[in-house]
């Protein structure tokens, strides 16, 4: 299948529904395996930090949730662009179904950050550039959710959300570079693209496993939500009626 064919087929929710069932399960199984290994490794096997002791272990849930919160938003930005330019049905479904997941990841990153901040910084919350831009991300997710609820017509709601999602993408580089551009209490990035992480492998390997695990979980969760959304929105079509009648969903 060429890229162009793939692109055209993505326009068909039916095609996506047919192929997605299996790899949804594959993502789910991978996520379960990776998360069990990574969490056990990080909680019990990895050494404590020389300064922070065992509270350092919060990194193994804090960093993955923060990365996923931003990745989910980037996906929504891309889906918003595709919806606005190509009017693809599936893009609007991605835009709608990613919101709750991304919101929960942002909330988790903020919560674990607060719980990590108390024993290390000495404060639950500090209004520095990193924490504030992350809070803005949470409000963007809440805004996207509210906007979709507020606009009754699906097509209009989709386009309004797409505009908000695409414009909101400018917040992502601000989150990423906030710790470099301004003086913050939050430390610099754990994983950098150009340098190796400033900790030994026995500390960053479990983190990498958990980050991959969270990505797989996102994949599985998104596929699950999308398949349900397809059934809901396409319920009047012959192929969904046929699926339902045959009990082969």
């Amino acid at each position, binding site marked *: 299948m060429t890229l162009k064919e793939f692109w055209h087929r993505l326009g068909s929710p039916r095609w996506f529904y047919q192929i997605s069932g299996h790899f949804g399960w594959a993502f789910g199984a991978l996520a379960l395996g990776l998360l069990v290994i990574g969490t056990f490794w990080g909680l019990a096997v990895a050494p404590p930090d020389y300064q922070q002791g065992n509270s350092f272990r919060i990194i193994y849930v804090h960093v993955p949730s923060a990365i996923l919160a931003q990745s989910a938003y980037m996906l929504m930005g891309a889906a918003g662009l595709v919806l606005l330019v190509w009017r693809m049905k599936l893009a609007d479904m991605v835009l709608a179904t990613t919101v709750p997941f991304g919101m929960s990841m942002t909330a988790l990153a903020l919560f674990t950050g607060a*719980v990590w901040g108390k024993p290390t910084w000495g404060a639950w919350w500090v209004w520095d550039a990193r924490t504030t831009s992350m809070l803005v991300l949470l409000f963007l997710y809440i805004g996207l959710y509210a906007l979709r609820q507020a606009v009754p017509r699906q097509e209009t709601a989709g386009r309004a959300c797409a505009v908000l999602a695409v414009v909101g993408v400018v917040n992502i580089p601000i989150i990423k570079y906030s710790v470099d551009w301004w003086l913050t209490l939050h430390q610099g990035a754990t994983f950098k693209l150009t340098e190796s992480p400033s900790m030994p492998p026995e500390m960053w390997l479990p983190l990498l496993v958990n980050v991959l695990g969270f990505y797989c979980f996102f994949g599985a969760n998104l596929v699950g939500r999308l398949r349900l959304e397809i059934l809901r929105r396409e319920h009047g079509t012959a192929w969904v*009626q046929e699926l339902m009648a045959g009990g082969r969903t």
Partner: protein
Amino acid sequence: MSFGSLPEFFAMGGHGLYVWLSYGAALLVVFFNAAWVRFARRRYLREAADRMQRYPPAMRAAQETESGRL
């Protein structure tokens, strides 16, 4: 292994409250995301099946024709 015994593991060197709060929250978020999909899907399929039984497609098509909504 970083810990010698189970109580030591749970105590997390005095930071147990913070570590377990974080991991507890993470578990909840992952669990509810996964559970929501299963729950919502099952409920939707059940409701759709009910609708299907009450108004089979053929009957609904006939109704719609009668009421002039084609």
